[in-house]
C-alpha cells in the first residue's frame, strides 16, 4: 500500500492541497503536545539522573546525558508514540468512517484511487512533519532539562550547555533523523491500512482505531530496537 501511494506521486492528478492540509493537521496540530512531551521528558530526565550522577561526582555531565538520551532515543520514540496516539487514531477513524459510509466505494466509482487520494497525502505529510516534530521535541527536551538543572539543582548554565554540545555528535543527529522517517512510514501505513480494512459499521471503526494505535505503537518500539542496533553498526557509534 505504501509503495502504491509513493508510486502514485509520479502520476497526475497530484494531491498537493490535500498533502498541505494534512501537514497542517499532523504537524501544526501536534505541536503543543510535542512541545509539552519534550519539555517535561527533558525535565524528568534531569530529575532522575542528576542525583545518580552526583553520587559519582559527575553532575556536570547531566546535559550530556539528557541530550544524548533525547536525541538518540526518547525524542524520536516519544514523538512517534504521541503522533501515533493523536494522528494514527484520527487517520484510522476517518478512513474507517469513510469505508462504512461507502465514501471509499463512491470515490473508486468516481474514478479516483483512494490510495493516491487519501493514503499518499497522509504518508507524505507524516514523512515530512514527524522528523520536524522530533527536532522540536529534542530542542524543548533539552530546554526542559536545562530549566530543571538550573532551577532545582543550581547547575551552572554554561556547564549544562557545554555538556550538551559535547554530548551530541553528527552520528546522533543522523540517527535521530533516520528513526522518525521510518516511524512515519510505520504509523502512516498501519493507520491507513487499519482504516481502509474496517468492517462492521461504527463498532468496526472503533475496533480498527484501537488496533491502529496498538499495532503502530508496538511496531514503532520493536523497530526502534532494531534501528538502534543497525545505526550503531552502520555509523560505528558507541
Amino acid at each position, binding site marked *: 500500500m505504501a509503495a502504491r501511494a509513493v508510486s502514485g506521486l509520479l502520476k497526475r492528478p497530484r494531491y498537493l492541497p490535500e498533502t498541505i492540509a494534512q501537514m497542517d493537521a499532523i504537524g501544526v496540530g501536534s505541536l503543543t503536545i510535542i512541545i509539552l512531551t519534550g519539555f517535561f521528558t527533558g525535565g524528568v530526565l534531569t530529575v532522575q539522573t542528576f542525583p545518580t550522577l552526583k553520587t559519582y561526582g559527575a553532575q556536570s555531565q547531566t546535559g550530556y546525558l539528557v541530550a544524548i538520551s533525547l536525541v538518540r532515543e526518547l525524542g524520536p520514540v516519544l514523538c512517534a508514540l504521541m503522533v501515533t496516539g493523536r494522528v494514527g487514531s484520527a487517520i484510522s477513524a476517518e478512513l474507517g468512517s469513510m469505508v462504512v459510509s*461507502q465514501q471509499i*466505494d*463512491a470515490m473508486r*466509482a*468516481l*474514478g479516483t484511487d483512494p490510495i493516491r487520494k487519501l493514503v499518499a497525502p497522509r504518508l507524505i505529510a507524516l514523512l515530512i512533519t514527524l522528523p520536524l516534530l522530533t527536532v522540536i521535541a529534542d530542542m524543548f527536551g533539552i530546554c526542559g532539562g536545562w530549566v530543571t538543572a538550573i532551577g532545582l539543582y543550581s547547575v551552572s548554565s554554561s556547564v549544562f550547555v557545554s555538556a550538551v554540545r559535547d554530548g551530541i555528535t553528527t552520528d546522533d543527529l543522523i540517527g535521530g533523523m533516520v528513526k522518525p522517517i521510518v516511524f512515519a512510514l510505520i504509523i502512516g501505513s498501519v493507520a491507513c491500512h487499519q482504516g481502509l480494512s474496517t468492517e462492521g459499521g461504527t463498532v468496526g471503526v472503533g475496533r480498527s482505531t484501537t488496533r491502529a494505535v496498538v499495532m503502530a505503537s508496538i511496531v514503532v518500539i520493536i523497530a526502534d530496537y532494531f534501528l538502534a542496533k543497525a545505526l550503531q553498526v552502520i555509523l560505528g557509534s558507541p
Partner: protein
Amino acid sequence: MAGSNFQTLTNQPDGRVSSNAAESTFHEIDDLDRAIPAIEFRDVLLAFDDRIILNKLSFKVMKGETKIILGGSGGGKSTIIKLVLGLLKPDAGQVFVDGEDITDYNEVRMMRVRKKIGMVFQEGALFDSLSVYDNVAYRLHEQGVPEEEVEPEVRRMLRFVNLEDAIDKMPAELSGGMRRRVGIARALIGDPKIVLFDEPTAGLDPPTARTICELAMKLRDLEDVSSIFVTHEMNNLDYLCSEYAVVNEEGRVVFEREGERLCLINSKVMMMLQGNIIFSGTDERLRKAEDPYIQKFLRGH
C-alpha cells in the same frame, strides 16, 4: 463490423457518398452499437468462504434499458452492482461493460471503465467534508476540468434533481432524500451512459421515493441511459414499469402511464433469491408468476 460499413462508403463509383446512404450506414452502425449490451454477466459465480453469493448468474442489460433487480436482503442484489464497478471480482464467469470484458481488469484499467458509469449509493455516500457543489463537481475536478466549465455543468445537474438552491450546503445540512438526489446529480455528471442505483429509495417517504423514480425514468426515456435499479420496494417497480417520461408541448417533462398509446419495453425485471435468478422478464409476467416466493414478495406477506 464498423470497418466494413466504412468500406461500403468509399466504394461508391464517384467516390462520394449520398446523404441517404450515409444516413442509413450510420443507422446501421448505431443499430450494431445498440446490439451490444451495456452490461452483461456470463455465468458469474461469487462466494465468500463457503457461502455462495451469486450462483452462475447470466443476464444482459441492453442500451437504454432499465433492469430492475428485486429481492430480499442478502440476496446478492448490491453485489451485482459492485461487480459491474469492479469493486469486487467474480470467482468464475465474465462481466462485460459496453462489450468490454472487465473481469480481469486491474484497478488502473477499471478507472477508465468507471468513467462510463454513474453510481447512486443507498445512503448517497456523499463526501462529508465537501459541499454539495464540490461533491457534484468531484469527478470533473479530478479530471482537471477548468472551473469555468465545471460550474455550469454542476448547476445543470443540480437543476435536473431540483436542488440548485442547495449548491452551497454541506451534506450534514441535507435531508435523506436531498442526499440521494445530490448523489444522483454526482453520478450523472459527465453524462455516463450507464447508471447503477443501489436501493436509492430505501428509508425515504413515498413522495421523495417517487421523485427518485421519476429521475430514473427521465434518464431512461429522455437521456437513453442504461441502468440497473436495485430495490426491494414494489412502489418503485410500479412507477418504473408503468410510466414513462415525455416532454410536453410547453417543453416540460411529464410522466404518462403506459396504455394503448405506448407499451414500455425498456424496463425489465429480474428477481433474485439467495444468489439465483428466480425470475427474468416483464412486470406483467412477474405478477402472473406462480412461484410462491414471488407471490409472497408481491403481496408483502
